[in-house]
């Protein structure tokens, strides 16, 4: 680790008037050395992305840097002209964005887009550009570089696209790489590959990497230095070992405390309880009709799936994107029609029930969705939306309102929320309201479809605790769908692992973690970031210093 590549000194970025605070980033000082990975960690709204945008001189117009210096290779970025910035960007410093699906232009081949970098910064001849591009593709470990070179972005998977974006960033051997949540949109196995690539790049290229993330396990996986931000202010920074294992600031401790532990200590006995839900050989096949000379095809989104859920049990359904877990849930609730199979609740088959009787059958099974912003109608008050269910089943409105008042208290919100509209709540609060809404009709089974995935870790932890508490108090059974094994480990008794539309493994959570049977489960577990890091016992540390 020789020399400082980037040093940010006392950076303050103002927010426009009327925001919830006056500075997006306040008095921030960070240095990134050669061959060093610096992680900036924080929850949403902490100013971590603003910091990376300021460094790239890509701040939105509404935001102004009011003081501080950003010194990169000896010059203050804030004093450079637009043309100088353009020369630096892509050449000496490069950025990797969160969303690989939109960071590439769908109109050009991957090869053209990488060559564009050489074209705009150098006067290399065509043949050399192509050779360098192919070499880069090999370096980011793409299979069959010549084929990828001629591919369009839509022909590649998310992980492959992210590697193309990284290849573009590396093209001119920049001394600084800025990566803003580079793996958040990716599956764990892909994330593991990208992270190991970062580690390798640090070694082979000697570049400084500034990585913005919200995930402490990612930090544990790659970081040399860690900067923790809260509401625009750096609350703690130090080496990875210091911050991860001996955090000083209370906020850092709170974040680390909220990191999902990898195992459950309290195994619960559920095998003897009665079954509330039995799914038998449920399948869903999509038919793609023949067109333009292509023969008709059938795509099996869900291969025969069978399992049962016992009273009071929480069953996790874990899988990466495209594994069929959402199809399974939607087919089981008849939000889509399954192709075959049975879904038995209380001796009645939901899968075969006529559309007209679905209303009454669904009463026993309710769902909490992933997106806290899309699952409440923005035009109706919370109270109105909560009483909707019972009123549909013939409960008088006043009585339903009474129940709504009880339930918002159970999800730890005040009664006055019933008069408000959804836009007045944060993501975590909305998710509580969705839980309350699902409970309004007194279901036996609650389905949580990625219900905590969109939330910050500390909020995630609270919502999980609330779910567990409600489950125990009301004797609910729960189907908990998630892509995140760590989250599943916190709340589930049993877990089902899905891959490519198929259930590959089922077992008690402790057993699956300790002794995975299926190769896919093993791969999934091995890909979890931060395995080398044992979350410290915070109570054993000296008192926090704010």
């Amino acid at each position, binding site marked *: 680790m020789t020399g400082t590549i980037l040093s940010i000194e006392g950076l303050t970025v103002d927010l426009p008037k009327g925001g919830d605070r006056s500075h997006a980033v306040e008095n921030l000082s960070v240095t990134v050395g050669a061959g060093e990975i610096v992680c900036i960690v924080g929850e949403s709204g902490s100013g971590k992305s603003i910091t990376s945008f300021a460094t790239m001189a890509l701040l939105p117009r509404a935001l102004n840097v009011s003081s501080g210096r950003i010194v990169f290779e000896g010059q203050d970025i804030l004093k450079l002209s637009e043309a100088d910035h353009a020369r630096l960007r892509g050449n000496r410093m490069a950025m990797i964005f969160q969303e690989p699906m939109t960071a590439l232009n769908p109109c050009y081949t991957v090869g053209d887009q990488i060559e564009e970098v050489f074209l705009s910064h150098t006067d290399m001849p065509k043949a050399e550009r192509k050779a360098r591009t192919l070499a880069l593709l090999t370096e980011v470990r793409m299979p069959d570089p010549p084929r990828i070179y001629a591919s369009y972005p839509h022909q590649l998977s998310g992980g492959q696209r992210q590697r193309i974006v990284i290849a573009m960033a590396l093209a001119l051997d920049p001394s600084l790489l800025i990566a803003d949540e580079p793996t958040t949109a990716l599956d764990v196995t892909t994330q593991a590959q990208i992270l190991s690539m970062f580690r390798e790049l640090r070694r082979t290229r000697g570049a400084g990497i500034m990585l913005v993330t919200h995930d402490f396990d990612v930090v544990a996986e790659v970081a040399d230095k860690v900067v923790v931000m809260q509401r625009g202010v750096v609350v703690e920074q130090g080496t990875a070992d210091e911050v991860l294992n001996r955090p000083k600031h209370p906020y850092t401790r709170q974040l680390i405390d909220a990191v999902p532990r990898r195992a459950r200590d309290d195994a619960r006995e559920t095998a003897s309880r009665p079954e509330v839900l039995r799914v038998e050989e449920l399948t869903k096949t999509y038919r793609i009709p023949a067109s333009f000379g292509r023969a008709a095809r059938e795509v099996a989104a869900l291969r025969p799936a069978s399992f049962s859920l016992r009273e009071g049990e929480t069953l996790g359904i874990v899988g990466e994107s495209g594994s069929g877990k959402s199809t399974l849930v939607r087919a089981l609730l008849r939000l889509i029609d399954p192709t075959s199979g049975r879904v038995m609740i209380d001796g009645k088959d939901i899968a075969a029930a006529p559309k007209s009787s679905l209303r009454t059958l669904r009463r026993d099974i309710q769902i909490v969705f992933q997106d806290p912003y899309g699952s409440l109608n923005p*035009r109706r008050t919370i109270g109105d939306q909560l009483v909707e269910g019972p009123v549909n089943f013939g409960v008088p409105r006043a009585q339903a309102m009474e129940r709504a008042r009880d339930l918002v208290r159970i999800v730890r919100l005040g009664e006055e929320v019933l008069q408000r509209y959804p836009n*007045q709540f944060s993501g975590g609060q909305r998710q509580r309201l969705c839980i309350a809404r699902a409970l309004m009709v007194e279901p036996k089974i609650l389905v949580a479809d990625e219900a905590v995935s969109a939330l910050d870790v500390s909020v995630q932890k609270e919502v999980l605790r609330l779910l567990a508490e409600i489950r125990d108090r009301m004797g609910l059974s729960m189907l908990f769908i998630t892509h995140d094994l760590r989250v599943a480990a916190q709340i589930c008794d049993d877990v089902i692992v899905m891959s490519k539309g198929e259930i590959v493994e089922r077992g008690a959570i402790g057993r699956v973690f300790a002794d995975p049977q299926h190769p896919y489960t093993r791969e999934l577990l091995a890909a979890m970031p931060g395995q080398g890091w044992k979350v410290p016992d915070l109570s054993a540390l000296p008192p926090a210093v704010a």
Partner: protein
Amino acid sequence: MTPPMVSPPAPVLSPRRQMLRRALRHRGLIFSSIVLGLIVLIAVFAPLLAPYDPYKQSLIARMKPPVYLGGTWKYPLGTDALGRDMLSRLIYGARVSLMIGLVSAGLSAVIGTVMGISAGYFGGRVDRFVQYLINVRLAMPVILVALATVSLLGGSMFIIMIVMGLLLWDRFAVVLRSATMQVRAMEYIEAAEMLGARQSRILWKEILPNVSSHLIVIFTLEMAHAIILEAGLSFLGLGVQPPTPSWGLMISEGKEMLLFDSWLIMIPGIALFLLVFSINMFGDGIRDVTAPEGRN
């Protein structure tokens, strides 16, 4: 282990109050609301405001110029070829224009909304049928069909309103169809299905309120469209029949005098322009104020 009590959300303004605040800051909206409000008031209180009977002819007071061209205050906006007071005709004409705009656009709104929302919500066959109807409708030139129908059935105001109401629903159907498809994919619709809501209830309580901002904007566009169309039909002599004081008819009656007494066309022309302009501006304002990106 009980999670801590979450503090109640900070007192944020309700969506309606926020919208009102945005509205009061929107200059175009304020301006157009004032102009529209004035025109509506004039139309409602026409009998009290008009100095003369709009039908009364006076051969000795023909072709008096308006005051700004050297006329007298007796006829502030002058008189037409039959000696009728222009100001009074203009005031009564506002009634005709507004009435035609509201009724035609209203009828179209009902037809187009029902078609658009059912196409967007049910999809499949319903959608294909509605799209077929939309295509058929788009293949017909409105003005020709209106001309043909009106010349067959005669040009009473009632017939004109019905004919235009049956012709101007295409934009409602097209826009609401796609707006509904977007809303339909939201999870609160699935949540409502799970909570046992009937389809009619989902359409009425979940979908309609969330597409209503589109509805209002298109309504204003189509209202302006209908007013212009009526003026066009009247100009061609196939709209509202004389002596009814319609702005389009006034322009048509003044066209022979265009070169020498251009005020006969200018005055109703400016009135028509102001009305249509402020309706469009009002629609734009409403769209800005209710824009979903400001609402989340």
